[in-house]
């Protein structure tokens, strides 16, 4: 019985060994997220920036990826209820909590042409004249071809 047992164990282990060797660990897999930053001279908006209603701005951020970039998006939404804060480390002075009447909602998606590993986002946004002034968030996100995503969020203000 012991001989049979040893035999079986040997078979099982060599089987497992072969399985693990035959699998293609060597295939290159993308395990790196893209990166996104506004921390350069032209990066916009910086934390606590005040945007004036009726004005037009260039929203700019640098995105990079080790393999290939895919898409990005820009989302501007109100923070009248102070539901969250940005990830830039800055503490902006927030207005008192208030109810939204006609808040600005900006949500747009864009794709990046194939094959790029570095790209500068440049979106032209005009702040409508009729939107509520107050605290807002500006959130950028970017994906790479694999489906990894990075986000960054900035506290801003819209003023009259």
């Amino acid at each position, binding site marked *: 019985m012991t001989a049979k*047992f040893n035999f079986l164990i040997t078979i*099982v282990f060599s*089987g497992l060994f072969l399985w693990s060797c035959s699998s293609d660990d060597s295939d290159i897999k993308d*395990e790196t997220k893209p990166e996104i930053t506004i921390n350069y001279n032209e990066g916009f908006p910086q934390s606590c920036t005040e945007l004036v209603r009726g004005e037009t701005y260039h929203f700019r951020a640098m995105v990079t990826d080790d393999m290939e970039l895919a898409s990005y998006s820009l989302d501007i939404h109100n923070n009248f*209820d102070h539901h969250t804060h940005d*990830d830039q480390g800055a503490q902006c002075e927030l207005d008192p909590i208030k109810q*939204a009447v006609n808040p600005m909602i900006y949500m747009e998606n864009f794709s990046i042409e194939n094959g790029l590993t570095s790209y500068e986002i440049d979106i032209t946004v005009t702040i409508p004249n009729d939107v509520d002034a107050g605290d807002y968030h500006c959130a950028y996100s970017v994906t790479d071809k*694999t*489906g990894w*995503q990075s986000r960054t969020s900035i506290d801003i203000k819209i003023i009259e």
Partner: protein
Amino acid sequence: MYRFCHDPFLGDNCSNLIVFIMFHKTLSFWLCFSLYSIAFSQNSFLIKGSVINANTLQPIEGANIISKGLFAISSVTGEFTIKNVTEGTYTFTISHIGYNPKTLMIEVDPKMENLHISLSESTTTLKEIEVHGKTKKREAKELPITTVQVSKEFMDANRENSLMQTLKKIPGVSTINIGSGQSKPVIRGLGFNRVSVVQNGVKHEAQQWGNDHGLEIDQYGIENIHIIKGPASLLYGSDAIAGVVDIQSPKTPSVNSFNGEVNVLAESNNDLLGVSTGIESRKEKWFYRGRLTYRDYGDYKVPTDKIRYESYIFDLHRNHLRNTAGNEANAAFSIGYVGESFKSETFFSNVYAKNGFFANAHGLEVRTSTIDYDSGNRDIDLPFHKVNHFKIVNNTSFYKGEHTIQLDLGYQNNHREEHSEPVPHGYMPKPDNSKERVFDKNTFSLNAKDAFKFNEKHNLVFGINTEFQNNNIGGWGFLIPKYNRFTVGFFAYDHIEASEKVHLQGGLRYDFGVINTKAYYDWYPSTVNNSDGSTSNVYLQRAQNKTLNFNNISGSLGVSYIGDKTTYKLNIGKSFRMPLANELASDGVNYHMYRYERGNLNLNPEESYQLDIDVGYSTKNFSFGISPFVNFFENFIYLNPTPNYYETLQIYEYTQSKVFRVGGELRFGYALTENLRIDASAEYVYSRQRNGPKKNFTLPFSPPLSGLVSANYQLKKDLLWFKNIRLMADYRLTAKQEEIVPPEEKTESFQVLNLSFLSNLNLFNSEKQTDLRFKLNNVFDTKYFNHTSFYRLIDVPEAGRNISLSLTIPF
């Protein structure tokens, strides 16, 4: 003739023992025990004794009495003799199927006395024993599929905060934890709807697909769990792909009995206080049981005062993971009848739990709030969820000739509400209440099977499983649609006893299912760009009215060989899973996960083929086992993160891909001395997607290579009031997990040490001793991350050091 008892605490049962003798010695922890002396000659002695049932005081036939080189089996009257024993001290193990084994030290010398041994019944005596006369252990050996039997003793000795956390010590079983009080089962790396949980013969149906809630089952009062690792659709239908956690009906109480227990638990890490009390009683034919459980716990503590998630930093107040407190209240009652040729029991149970979620991030979304979370550690503020699971199950068996007919009927209602602070998202204005998601699901089940032993060799089983689900939704968030689902499955299999050692089992199953999803429209308008450049405000449709049919053939074939010391098993099986309503028809934004989830109406039932091998070798002091598997999915349903956006949220799409998996478990046990036992186990799963958008990636929530080394030391001597003292040390070693798929993070390796002290106490009643357990989890307060924890994604480490004290007082 003396009447005499060795233990001053023992009561009437003890005084019944008539003793001839001069002296005695305390040899047993459990029961009355005394000695007679019949010396034969100077050097050769005769050991005489008898074995009785501790409860009924009836003799036990066929008990094994074993010591080094000595062996006897008790007769019909429970008596045994061992001849020609030389003088000395012997350690005897007295064991019998269905009883807790007992180890005694016996001095064989001229003053030798007769032995009276009473064994207490273990919970492994189940109804099946009455029918087949086989133990669960033997049955498990004969079954070609890889199974693990979990006894009440194991549960008691290893109890953790939730049922699945208690079971994760079993190699191949792990959990997805959501905070301290909830967890979901994972078998060999697969969880959610790829593991079936069955209780009292009826599949537990809740919102298993969800990320953030656990299993709504009271872990107290469970006597026996049968865990199947491997494909089990043949017997359990859809979802039993990775395995089954089958919580079996408790055994019928003995005639004219009344038993009860109170369990009290206190824990330091989350300031938990829990109490559970259960009773069971039987007259002649009628029996009943009841149980009440209440647990209340505060926020749990982690070994860090700062959580760094991406570029956010959350400061923790006194290491408390803000707002993770919770409570749980469960009630269960059952009534049953045992007739000449039938047995029936109806179970009523209700499980209620309310748990807070970590307040600084809801899903992946970082939140700030005006709620003063740090004012107390026991309050449950937003976000939280509450869930109520009500169940009625009837199990009825008829025994007629060679037929055993089993009927299981069930109704269950699962009601879950998720509340969070209302916040505007995208085009959704700020809702006016906190009720984000409500799920209300009714499930009706009817299972019938006939086990027909048409000759000595064949045990043919055929049956039908039917189930109707009705799922309703509410709240301002949308994830899955309202739906109705009906499934029916027919199966037949034969268990062939080719010889005493060789058993074969094979069968086929056909399932048919129809799912009817209901349309859902947003309650707020969204701005949509039209092709002519204009925009319009539309109440977007998120789910459609659709009726979809599915069918599937599954089956399995296996063989087991039971040698003297070695057991071999080989099984090949095909199992399946019907697509879920959310996988088919969802079309909604999950803001907290920053994703837009898109269903796919073209999904096919998931089909999985698996080959399992299990080899177990055991001698008296040594045991070894290996259970490798190879698994192939034709079309694994996977929520794939795409590179595209919808309303600035990343689109995740349900897709199907071929998946290859291989892995298994190793287990090893060695009794170094009579008192010290070392056990070690390891588990590993390797997964690869073989095609599709994530080709060469692993699957989400892949558990890393992990091992557990346990030492179990049984003290020979009692210490003060502590009897039958056991010390246990569990050392868990887990490798780093580098196999990830978006949006996961790699997780570092860790080692954690847990220590336990277990003992019996003569607290109120010497006949029924109190079990005491003192446990120290995460002894060194190690900061580590569990790759399969819900909070892993936001970089929350596992719980810190925890001291728990548990008392189980029988009455």
